[in-house]
């Protein structure tokens, strides 16, 4: 045990004396979370829209005001003719046009129904979609407030409720993804690099010739990264709670346990990579290509899995990050307990056991 402690202390020296490691360990998580939180966002804010109001009556005026009053939209201009719609889009400033039909108030009262067309600039489909959702939700709110005061409710609209993230705050979507990336990066990439470094420098041989057992060497290399990953996870959660007011509906304890499980999955992958790679550079390339890309592209972090081609949907199942993202989204946003995520947890657990088994086998072959 004393030998082991000395080993871990040595590992910390390596980490704290290498500026690059320090940056990846502590600079990256904070930079990423802030970047995703503030800069890269598909949230909309003060989007310029144009209004083509064919009725110009009291109801439409009120309706337009309620849209203009929201922080999401500002009315850039009023247009008079259908032909102007294309012109304003071509100018590029306006992202959406509200096209209100003729005799809006009368139709509402007479038919109990009236139409507003929302035309969006779909060159950026994500934003267009978001704008559509926002406008719809504002209109619904407006309508229900009108109905309350009216004697005869003039329209029954099926309510589309947006659950879990009613404000569609994208940062809530990004936090789980960023957390997954960081844990993967720190645990898998950093350990695989630190183990292959010993191989490259020739010190691994020295360690294998020492009375330390091979698994002690590996565990000794991994322990500091478990510790640092846990700190990272805490930093990310704290940042997202206090800066982005992200809710953590579920149990923090469960969140912690699941994070530790994912950290161990990632570490097992890191060990596996280091048993294949002979140099730090190879280890880094395999980590980036083999781990980071799938985490970003196939985990559902940025692109929804349900809208992927069928074959990619299948492949996404072998990406551990996918399961972890489902788990933490469940805990943080929906507040579910273990009962609802035991399947995902089991998948992660199975993957971890598999990776550890595989690296033990690889390791043995190498020693023969």
């Amino acid at each position, binding site marked *: 045990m004393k*030998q082991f402690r000395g080993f871990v202390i040595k590992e910390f020296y390596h980490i704290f004396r290498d500026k690059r490691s320090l940056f990846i360990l502590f600079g990256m998580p904070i930079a990423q979370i802030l970047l995703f939180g503030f800069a890269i966002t598909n949230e909309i804010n003060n989007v310029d829209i144009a209004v083509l109001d064919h009725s110009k009556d009291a109801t439409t005026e009120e309706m337009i005001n309620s849209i203009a009053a929201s922080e999401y939209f500002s009315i850039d201009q009023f247009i008079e003719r259908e032909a102007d719609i294309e012109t304003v889009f071509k100018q590029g400033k306006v992202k959406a046009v509200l096209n209100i039909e003729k005799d809006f108030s009368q139709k509402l009262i007479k038919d109990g129904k009236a139409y507003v067309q929302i035309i969006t600039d779909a060159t950026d489909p994500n934003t267009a979609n978001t704008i559509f959702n926002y406008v719809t939700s504002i209109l619904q709110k407006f309508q229900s407030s009108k109905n309350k005061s009216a004697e005869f409710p003039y329209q029954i609209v099926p309510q589309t409720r947006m659950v879990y993230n009613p404000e569609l705050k994208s940062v809530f979507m990004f936090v789980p993804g960023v957390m997954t990336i960081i844990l993967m990066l720190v645990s898998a990439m950093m350990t695989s690099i630190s183990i292959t470094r010993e191989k490259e420098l020739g*010190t691994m041989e020295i360690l294998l010739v020492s009375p330390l057992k091979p698994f002690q060497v590996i565990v000794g290399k991994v322990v500091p990264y478990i510790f640092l990953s846990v700190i990272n996870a805490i930093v990310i959660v704290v940042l997202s709670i206090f800066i982005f007011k992200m809710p953590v509906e579920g149990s923090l304890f469960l969140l912690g346990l699941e994070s530790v499980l994912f950290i161990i999955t990632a570490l097992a992958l890191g060990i596996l990579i280091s048993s294949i790679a002979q140099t730090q550079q190879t280890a880094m390339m395999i980590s980036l290509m083999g781990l980071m890309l799938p985490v970003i592209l196939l985990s559902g972090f940025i692109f929804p899995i349900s809208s992927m081609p069928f074959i990619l949907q299948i492949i996404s199942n072998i990406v551990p990050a996918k399961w972890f993202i489902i788990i933490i989204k469940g805990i943080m946003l929906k507040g579910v307990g273990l009962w609802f995520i035991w399947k995902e947890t089991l998948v992660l657990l199975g993957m971890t056991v598999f990776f550890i088994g595989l690296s033990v086998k690889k390791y043995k072959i190498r020693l023969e």
Partner: protein
Amino acid sequence: MMENNNVIEVKELTKMFGDFTAVSAITFEVKQGEIFGFLGANGAGKTTAMKMLIGISKPTAGDARVAGFDVASEAENIKKNIGYMSQKFALYDDLTVKENITFFGGIYGLTRAKIKEKTRELTEELGLKDLTDQMVGSLPLGWKQKIAFSVSLLHEPKIVFLDEPTGGVDPITRRQFWEMIYKSANKGTTIFVTTHYMDEAEYCDRVSIMVNGKIEALDSPKKLKEQYGAETMNDVFLKLARG
């Protein structure tokens, strides 16, 4: 095993990688306190043979006992009784001299007091007193090799395996390095050393020369030179290597 003062006994030791025979039935003994030179061209199989002796590679066939323990089944016991220094760096560049000593002392199970004592001893002997808090990476190669050798002796092993310890080092430092080797051999430590430098072979008590996985010659440098009618060990080596 017979009662004698052989610390290494190798019999018909063989290592195969698939169809390729890297080490082919080598047999030799090394006595306690001996400086045993293990020579051979690159790819002759010396590193593979050495790896089997230090317990990180399992022999395909044959027996070998190091410090009284069987390499195939008692590798863990061997590891406690040997020191090892490889041709690449044996020390961590980003740790100070003192931290390196503490670390390696630690993994060999030395007590803190013992490590302190050894650190003082070692730095005094090497004239390193002012450099203990320097990063090893900032020291010249010659210094590193000398410190690495001393570190491999920290736990007072019976046998030290040196894998091309003087590669890339200037002649003066090599000279000093060999003085250190003599010193510890005089104290009873057995030295098993591989080298490229044929002049270094002359410093050994006995040398073996490996060619294509087999030991082609094994004797004291003096006798080998007589046997092959050569002026220097280099000539002996060339004659053997060319067949």
